[in-house]
């Protein structure tokens, strides 16, 4: 165990996987000479050379497609998309090629690619640079969607992603890169996909988050305990596809209440899916309708106060819990 920032945990995962498997290589915009927009890949080009840590032009469609082709050609590529916002420019490659090659070929081909992207708002970057699209990617069969909330999970899940035979969308909330946590240094430290983690046990309400919103959930649980003497169970989904609905349902059957926290827009967002699944599986145990605390239904504003108002906060979560009692 060592305490480290999430960015360094991700760095170590990449480095260890490159050392373990010579088929692993990295491609992306400014991941080499510049060291990566969020410094995750810093130093790796010096260590592994410009072939295995390849600086690419600004051509999202081209490099995503090239990653898919390289995966089909026997390698284990990781393509870094600088931020998730730019994935729109290359999304056809992800949706029509990566996610469907296996099915459309009757299972003859598979695409073992890891696509990493930074996501999320909160840094006053305005509407084009503040998307949370975990739910959108989770919409597509054929993809796996991973969204860690802390350094240890980031490492274990990223290492696990390189051992998957299928395309993995690995989403890193930009606000979390600097957050610290204890991280195992065992090179075989892996976290299985489809296993949510119960971060805190509780009895009155289940608060569910993923990626950045896990932190609002944790802070809200603390406020609930301190101010309202309420005991919240906090669940971090860790992967949206596959989704560990079982852990969520077990918890809701115990607490009889569920609040979903997400940065993404509420309308048609992942929270809507999760809420429906809880309703389908645990309707008789619910004492109140499932509540969603989501990003507001607006393009992200630049102004600090407006942006803050547009994002879910721990106070919003507390309010939602109190409203369902």
């Amino acid at each position, binding site marked *: 165990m060592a305490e480290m920032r999430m960015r360094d945990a991700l760095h170590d995962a990449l480095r260890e996987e490159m050392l373990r498997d010579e088929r692993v290589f990295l491609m992306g915009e400014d991941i080499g000479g510049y060291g990566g927009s969020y410094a995750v890949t810093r130093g790796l080009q010096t260590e592994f050379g410009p072939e295995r840590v390849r600086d690419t032009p600004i051509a999202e469609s*081209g490099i995503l497609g090239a990653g898919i082709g390289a995966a089909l050609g026997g390698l284990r590529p990781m393509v870094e998309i600088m931020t998730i916002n730019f994935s729109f420019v290359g999304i056809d490659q992800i949706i029509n090629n990566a996610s469907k090659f*296996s099915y459309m*070929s009757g299972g003859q081909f598979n695409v073992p690619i890891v696509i990493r992207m930074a996501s999320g708002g909160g840094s006053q970057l305005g509407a084009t640079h503040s998307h949370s699209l975990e739910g959108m990617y989770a919409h597509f069969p054929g993809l796996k969607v991973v969204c860690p909330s802390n350094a240890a999970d980031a490492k274990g899940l990223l290492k696990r992603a390189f051992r998957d035979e299928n395309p993995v969308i690995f989403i890193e909330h930009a606000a979390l890169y600097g957050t610290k946590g204890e991280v195992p240094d065992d090179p075989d430290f892996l976290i299985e996909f489809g296993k949510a983690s119960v971060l805190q046990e509780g009895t009155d309400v289940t608060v569910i988050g993923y990626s950045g919103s896990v932190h609002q959930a944790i802070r809200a649980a603390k406020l609930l305990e301190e101010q309202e003497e309420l005991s919240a169970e906090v669940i971090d989904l860790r992967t949206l596809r596959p989704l560990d609905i079982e852990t969520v349902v077990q918890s809701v059957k115990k607490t009889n209440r569920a609040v979903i926290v997400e940065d993404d827009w509420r309308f048609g967002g992942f929270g809507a899916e999760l809420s429906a699944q809880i309703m389908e599986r645990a309707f008789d145990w619910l004492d109140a309708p499932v509540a969603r605390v989501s990003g507001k239904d607006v393009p992200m504003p630049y102004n600090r106060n407006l942006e803050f108002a547009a994002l879910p906060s721990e106070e919003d979560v507390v309010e939602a819990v109190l409203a369902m009692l």
Partner: protein
Amino acid sequence: MKTETLTSAPATSSEPKDEQFERFLYQMLLIRRFEERTGEMYTKGKVRGFLHLYIGEEACAVGSISALRPQDKLITHYRDHGHAIARGIAPQRIMAELFGRVDGTSKGRGGSMHIFDKQANFYGGHAIVGGHMPVAVGLGLAAKMQGQDSVTMCVFGDGGVAEGEFHESLNLSSLWKTPNIWFLENNGYGMGLPLAKSVANEIYRLAEAYRIPSVRVDGMDVVGVHEVTEKALEHCRTGEGPYFIEAMTYRYRGHSMADAELYRQKSEVEEFRKRDPIERLKARMLQEDMITDRDYDELVARVEEEVAQAIQFADASAQPGLDTLYDGIYKENANG
């Protein structure tokens, strides 16, 4: 960088010329008859979805793909039956796919636009215009990084040239010197849109702009297409990076089965039929005493039989079980 305009030239491979030409003739006849009968099967409702026939363009697939080796990779657009046949995939498996049956190349999950065959290094059948081009770069890159002697040929249409992926792919392949043959089937139209309204320059010149050696060839001449592809393959094998071929061709039938062909005159089609790739090779072979009329008739009969057999096979093949609906979305991991 050289740009040249090639017309028919003698084949250079070690195979005796008459045998090689006969193979070309047979494959072109096979593709044409396959497509004609597939059109009939569509009218009968046996083949559904979008169906794009390759009739008229046979020399492109046969001439180019015959220059590839087994370890080379092929990826193409949705007008793909001809490429699949030329690559040696059994017509009966292609027909079974068109019928949506279990013995189809994708067990009925792909359809006409999505033919795949791993064993033949045939990476699809892609129906998003331009979308498969970056994948070709990656296949080339993987071969290069692993030191494999394998070239990836990517086939696409003139309509795809206006897509961003064409430009990104040419740029990347040139920058990274990937072993890619870019094979453009320029049939003059993207659906109903004539080339002049689609691309602002001659296409082979766009490739030049990316510093890719580029050749325009008569796509109705199978021998010429074969020869330039052999040359392209050699170029790619020596680590010089990609090579671009623009084959000028024409499709006789509509874009798909749902095309009223309002955008062109019948006379234009007739004009191109005079340059028919099959007639042309046949005439040459007769003239050079490589075959007799009787040999030709025998080839036609063989093809007729093979396609009839493919249809029978497809018709007899089972519908996929509904319990297999979810099969193949993900590949299972060795360790769960």
